[in-house]
């Protein structure tokens, strides 16, 4: 990897890290999701500075094209995040449904209460 590539990658990784943490501070991003992204961007910095880590890890694991290790690892991480999102989405969907039901039932109870009130007024 050239020095320019190393520097660019480090700067981008650090930039994203700061941006994500800032979004948390601004309350635009929940800290649990921030953690998810930091797990990816933070290790990128040492990898960019010492690319030999990848080669050595590849050699250790017996992968003959070490960068493939990086690609498969990052696809796995992204896959994990996406699956996590569908899990969160399912939870959100069932919660919105519950909220809709709750409001409808509250409305019905309010109607009942108002009707009971009217009845009392007339008698």
């Amino acid at each position, binding site marked *: 990897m050239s020095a320019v590539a190393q520097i660019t990658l480090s700067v981008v990784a650090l930039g994203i890290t700061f941006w994500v*943490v800032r979004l*948390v*501070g601004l309350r635009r991003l929940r*800290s*649990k999701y*921030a953690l998810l992204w930091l797990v990816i961007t933070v290790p990128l910095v040492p990898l960019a500075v010492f690319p030999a880590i990848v080669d050595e890890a590849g050699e250790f694991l017996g992968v003959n094209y070490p960068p493939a290790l990086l690609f498969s690892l990052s696809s796995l991480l992204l896959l994990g995040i996406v699956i996590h999102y569908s899990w969160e989405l399912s939870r959100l969907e069932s919660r919105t449904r*519950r909220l809709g039901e709750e409001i409808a039932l509250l409305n019905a109870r309010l109607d009942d209460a108002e009707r009971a009130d009217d009845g009392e007024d007339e008698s």
Partner: protein
Amino acid sequence: MSAVAVIPAFNEEASLGGVLAEIAEIDGLVPVVVDDGSSDGTAGVARNAGVACVRLPFNLGVGGAVRTGLRWALDHDAGTVVIVDADGQHDPADVAALLAAIDAGADLAIGSRFAADAGDYAVGGTRRRAMRILNRLVRSTTGFAATDATSGFRAMSRPVVEYLAREYPVEYLADTVEVIVLVRRAGHEVIEVPVSMRERAGGVPSARRFRLVFNFLRLLVGIAGGVLVGRRDGGRS
């Protein structure tokens, strides 16, 4: 304006009745139970005791339940709020001391089981070490020498209730530790009051400590975010 006791409760039918009976002894304290989506008879226990009960449609966690309770307190014109757990760990006998600290001018009074003159309370090794780290985290970010940063037994003044009803961080650990940081940074006065905590009166304690590392990292990110944007008024939610 009165004092409101916010009591978050998640499946606490076994201990809630006793807690409510003890709270009823305290003059001028209006209790509200926040039923955090319990599947047992928690709401029924509150109703039978004639205590207001806010029922959440699903489980929001301790932080979410407390936040709901703070909003109820504001709706009911509370002057001060004290948070008391439904599992019987918090001794209502200490409520008076917490409220007195607020009356004396503090904005957030934290019941500490480890302060000098507090009762003895045993915690296991890992938990104890984690608590020390969290206390140190509070001290290094705010200068406030916390001895029990994770204690949920607290009283707060009206301005802090108003602030937290908007800004309460609902995540576990953030709901106790980050709250101290936020309240200090917003310029409010925080103090500790020694209390004696008891074993829970019934039911089961949460298994949350298994997720301690995740929760700790999440807390760090949250606090780092606040420091990075130099939040004073808490930003917006």
